[in-house]
């Protein structure tokens, strides 16, 4: 996955599962992450996707590798991400860094290559 992996799907609830499965599989295949941290990433990405499908017509996810991290961008995001307290609490607890980017949320998990 040295070039970014991009997913672009209709913003449907049943596609959230597809995205979290793909991202978890990519993470397991390409990065040095134990099973617990892959579970954490799976849930965090899923929460971000759930927020995204409420915010736009498409669900767009870009996963890319950095030397010391896996970065997943999820579009769109609601204007007030923290309004959904449970979702935001879960995302914040499970990834090393969460930040708002233009129209989306960026999740960053620190890890080395597999």
């Amino acid at each position, binding site marked *: 996955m040295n070039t970014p992996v991009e997913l672009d799907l209709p913003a449907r609830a049943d596609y*959230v599962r597809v995205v979290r499965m793909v991202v978890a599989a990519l993470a397991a295949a390409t990065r040095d992450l134990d099973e617990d941290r892959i579970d954490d990433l799976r849930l965090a990405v899923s929460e971000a996707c759930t927020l995204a499908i409420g915010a736009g017509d498409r669900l767009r996810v870009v996963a890319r590798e950095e030397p010391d991290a896996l970065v997943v961008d999820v579009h769109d995001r609601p204007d007030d991400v923290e309004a959904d307290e449970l979702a935001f609490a*879960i995302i914040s607890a499970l990834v090393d860094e969460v930040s708002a980017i233009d129209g989306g949320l960026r999740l960053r998990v620190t890890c080395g290559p597999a």
Partner: protein
Amino acid sequence: MNLTLATTDENGIAVIAAHGEIDVSTAPQLRQAIVEVASAGPGPLVIDLADVDFLDSTGLGVLVSGLKRFRTMGSDVILVVAANRILKVFEITGLTQVFRLHSTREAAVAAARA
């Protein structure tokens, strides 16, 4: 199969056993099952999540609204949580302080009967 639900009666205690994944796509099924039990009587209700391998904030939201519904009737919802990855979602969100959690169905049903 993303989520299957089976509602049974264990010596007068209603038990909803969930198997699969609870997310934005499948949580409405769980909500419906809880509403059906609530409309049949004041409970208490045991929800067995031992065979659930994914639970997100949408699922938690359905569980919390179910809990409110039963507590309003002077009753309770008691959960069976076995896997660490599911327990972790309750811990992150502080909901271990809100729900009565047991690690086996037997213990949960006994607590419901007490």
